[in-house]
């Protein structure tokens, strides 16, 4: 039944794609009835109704009236959750990793505060339908987070990250917020580097590596200082011969505390240095990566710094770390009161977001906290919780209806709503599967 509906919907989407989109009739009201509803804003409702109207959640509860004309989805035996939010991806910025012509994630040069992810996100990327079929309804696309540009030069300020819905015909329709955070790759003391000239690994004495590191931090400090003066100058109208600088201008919201820095750092020492830097410069910091966040948890808590953790399914940094070091970290951070979300840090592996959250549960994180780490907490950390992250009246209706726990690997998303629209779970992988399942025997 649900399969048929999904198929019908997929078919209608294709038909529409060939026509002018204005011709498409969209249903504006839906009601999911008799489902278990996990709102993440209070206790789950065992037998509840969720009403979606004009793109928003119009009502949720055990006794909610279904508006006239609403398309009703019988949710008996099904479960309703907010769609998942993947807080670090290169979604839409990178199609095929090895083919540079399909990759727009990292600009040339070390300082690119003016480039914005939303500009280069490809709405028709095949990754988008594949990812949303796994229950992910919105993501943050992060530019320049790899630490290097294509020539192997250090990327320090990578650009601005943008949040968007995983459905829509244009970026204008998909965008949640264009300027969400400024990416900063905190410099590293690298005693082992990759040498592009010889295509081999190189060892560097510690003193040299430290010198290199100090130079990079000084350069960064210089940029921030210049941006501060620039922000002050434009704040005062500026002198008559004021020369515009788009890069410094892009940094002005960071200086004013309006745009957080999304600081990529994994080692404790780098995290500590980054926190100290942001504290001194009075910049709002969100940590990304955080493999050794547990080593500086007190500092992170006291400075109220949130963390977007890289996948817990990653190897520990040190050989002599416990083998499950990253798996147990979320539970440890929760204990210390550090706020965190979990990200995929990828495109093609974005659909492993739920798997990563489940693995944190297997290693001590309470289930609700794991679910929130991939829904509500990313939204809160990026200041978007008034729009997405829970099932509450008035929020954007990014909703998944599943046949089970959305973090478990066997669970299927039966219905998917993005911006209140019933959205197809069809995708490239499903289509190829169906095509080749039907290949006649040769």
């Amino acid at each position, binding site marked *: 039944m649900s399969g048929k509906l999904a198929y019908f919907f997929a078919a209608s989407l294709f038909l529409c794609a060939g026509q002018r989109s204005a011709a498409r009739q969209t249903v504006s009201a839906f009601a999911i009835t008799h489902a278990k509803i996990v709102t993440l804003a209070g206790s789950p409702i065992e037998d509840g109704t969720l009403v979606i109207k004009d793109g928003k959640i119009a009502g949720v509860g055990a006794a909610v009236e279904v508006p006239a004309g609403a398309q009703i989805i019988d949710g008996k035996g099904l479960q309703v959750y907010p769609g998942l939010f993947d807080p670090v991806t290169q979604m839409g910025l990178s199609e095929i990793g090895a083919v540079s012509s399909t990759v727009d994630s990292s600009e040339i040069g070390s300082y690119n505060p003016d480039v914005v992810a939303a500009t280069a996100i490809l709405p028709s990327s095949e990754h988008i339908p594949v990812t949303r079929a796994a229950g992910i309804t919105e993501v943050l696309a992060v530019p320049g987070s790899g630490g290097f540009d294509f020539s192997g030069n250090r990327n320090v300020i990578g650009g601005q990250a943008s949040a968007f819905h995983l459905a829509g015909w244009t970026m204008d329709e998909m965008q949640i917020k264009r300027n969400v955070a400024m990416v900063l790759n905190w410099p590293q003391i690298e005693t082992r580097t990759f040498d592009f000239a010889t295509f081999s690994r190189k060892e560097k004495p510690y003193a040299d590596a430290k010198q290199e590191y100090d130079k990079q931090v000084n350069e960064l400090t210089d940029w921030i200082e210049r941006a501060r003066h620039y922000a002050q100058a434009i704040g005062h109208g500026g002198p008559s011969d004021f020369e515009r600088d788009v890069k410094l201008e892009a940094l002005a919201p960071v200086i004013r505390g309006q745009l957080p820095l999304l600081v990529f750092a994994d080692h404790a020492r780098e995290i500590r240095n980054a926190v100290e830097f942001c504290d001194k410069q009075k910049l709002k910091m969100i940590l990304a990566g955080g493999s050794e966040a547990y080593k500086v948890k007190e500092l992170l808590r006291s400075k109220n710094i949130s963390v977007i953790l890289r996948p817990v399914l990653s190897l520990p940094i040190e*050989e002599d770390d416990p083998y499950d070091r990253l798996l147990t970290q979320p539970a440890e951070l929760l204990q210390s009161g550090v706020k965190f979300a979990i990200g995929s840090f990828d495109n093609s592996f974005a659909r492993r977001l739920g798997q990563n959250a489940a693995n944190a549960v297997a290693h001590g994180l309470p289930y609700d906290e794991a679910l929130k780490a991939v829904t509500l907490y990313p939204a809160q950390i990026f200041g978007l919780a008034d729009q997405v992250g829970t099932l509450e009246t008035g929020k954007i209706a990014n909703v998944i209806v599943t046949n089970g726990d959305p973090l478990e690997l066997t669970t299927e998303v039966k219905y998917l709503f993005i911006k209140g629209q019933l959205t197809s779970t069809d995708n490239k992988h499903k289509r190829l599967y169906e095509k080749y399942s039907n290949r006649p025997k040769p």
Partner: protein
Amino acid sequence: MRYGNPMSARCSLILAALLACASFSMATPPDASSIILIQNATILTVSHGTLEHGSILIKDGKIAEVGPSIKAPKDAKVIDAAGQFVIPGIIDCHSHIAIEGGVNEGSVSVSSIANIAEVLDPDDIDIYRDLAGGVTTANILHGSANAIGGQTMVIKLRWGQPAAKLPFEGALPGIKFALGENPKRSNFSIPGQPKRYPATRMGVEETIRGAFTEARDYKNSWDAYNKRVAAGEKNLVPPRRDLRLEPLVEVLEGKRYVHAHCYREDEILMLLRVAKEFGFKVRTFQHVLEGYKVADELVAAGVGASTFSDWWAYKVEAYEAIPYNAALMTKRGVLVSVNSDDAEEATHLNQEAEKAIRYGGLTHEEALKLITLNPAIQLGIDKRVGSIDVGKDADLVIYNHDPLSAYAVAQKTIVDGRVLFDRDKDVAERAAVEKEKKELLEKEKKAAEKKPDEKKPETKTPEDKPKPPSDAVKRDSGEEMVSSPDGGAR
């Protein structure tokens, strides 16, 4: 106590040297395998269904008895596994752990002279990590830089044993082949080095054909020589030995398995044609992400497929990869396994196998076979491992949950009847390991302070080690090839 204790893997040289003196890590590994009785477990035998509240008796490293209730023999160590699940040890059909240094001899297009057996590293911490993820056997492969790559071998994850003890006794050795983008070097070039032949899939075919033409001639010359010797001729000059061709002759004679890295449907069929032409068999296609397109041809050729769960889009030849690959091929009759190609991925192969239930609707047992019995058959070791049957090696994993779940955590991993990973013990030892590490660092610091005149040894603090890839990027085959150091663009 070296097993179960990651601290004793090589840290820095200095630490390791100091460690060698520390009594903590010097306890001898339990050489004599004891009698172990696992009781009250849910036993997923893989070969003959599930046994609820069952027992497994282990003697002399083998499974001695499997049944609903077995009386504990005298001196048996009893493991109460109430509420827990036992499966056969996981077999990873594509791994690059336990290799010292690089996995690719990439200078030539036929590197069959290189042999993984010569660079086994028993101290690689990834052995322990994968053991903690339930892996007990792994197919250790050369990289995919060459149309015909290096010689490969199957090992058991006998953590704590020297390199000589790792090889899986009696397992046929293999050789790595590679088709497509990696051998033709599509995704990178090495500065200062000329382009290498082949640069197309056509050239890859000719490279393999050329090598086997030589190997056939070489074999003929030896056959002729041996025949004349057998006939009693004296004073013959034997043919000159060619170490590059010898492994290929073994392939022609069915004494060495071919494990062929591939992606696209066309190159899969290409290798099947070339193999037919020379009369050898391809044992497994590795990755084989478009295997679902030619499943019937794979069945007809009787070749196994060892694939990823859900990797895709990291390069053009992976752009039509689908997570339904394992299930679709299985349903068409292909013998399929799910592999890791990555030390981290190997720590949760149980979860990766589970995905074939969601994508393509395999049964629980079919999914479990993808990481146990099927790879055992593919590697020709199914008489020894791959299922829980009397007489097979006691290679077992005990989980706290149905292993085909993202919530399952391996509690104990047993190899040859020895508990080589014990989660409780690992957790319990951590404080002591941490304390020991601090003391050693302290000692080293003091030693350095005492001798201010001498040049200080370069102290590598833990944070000086190379960082992991900046993004959670997975690649195929330990391939330095596709790994653009640009994590962001990956």
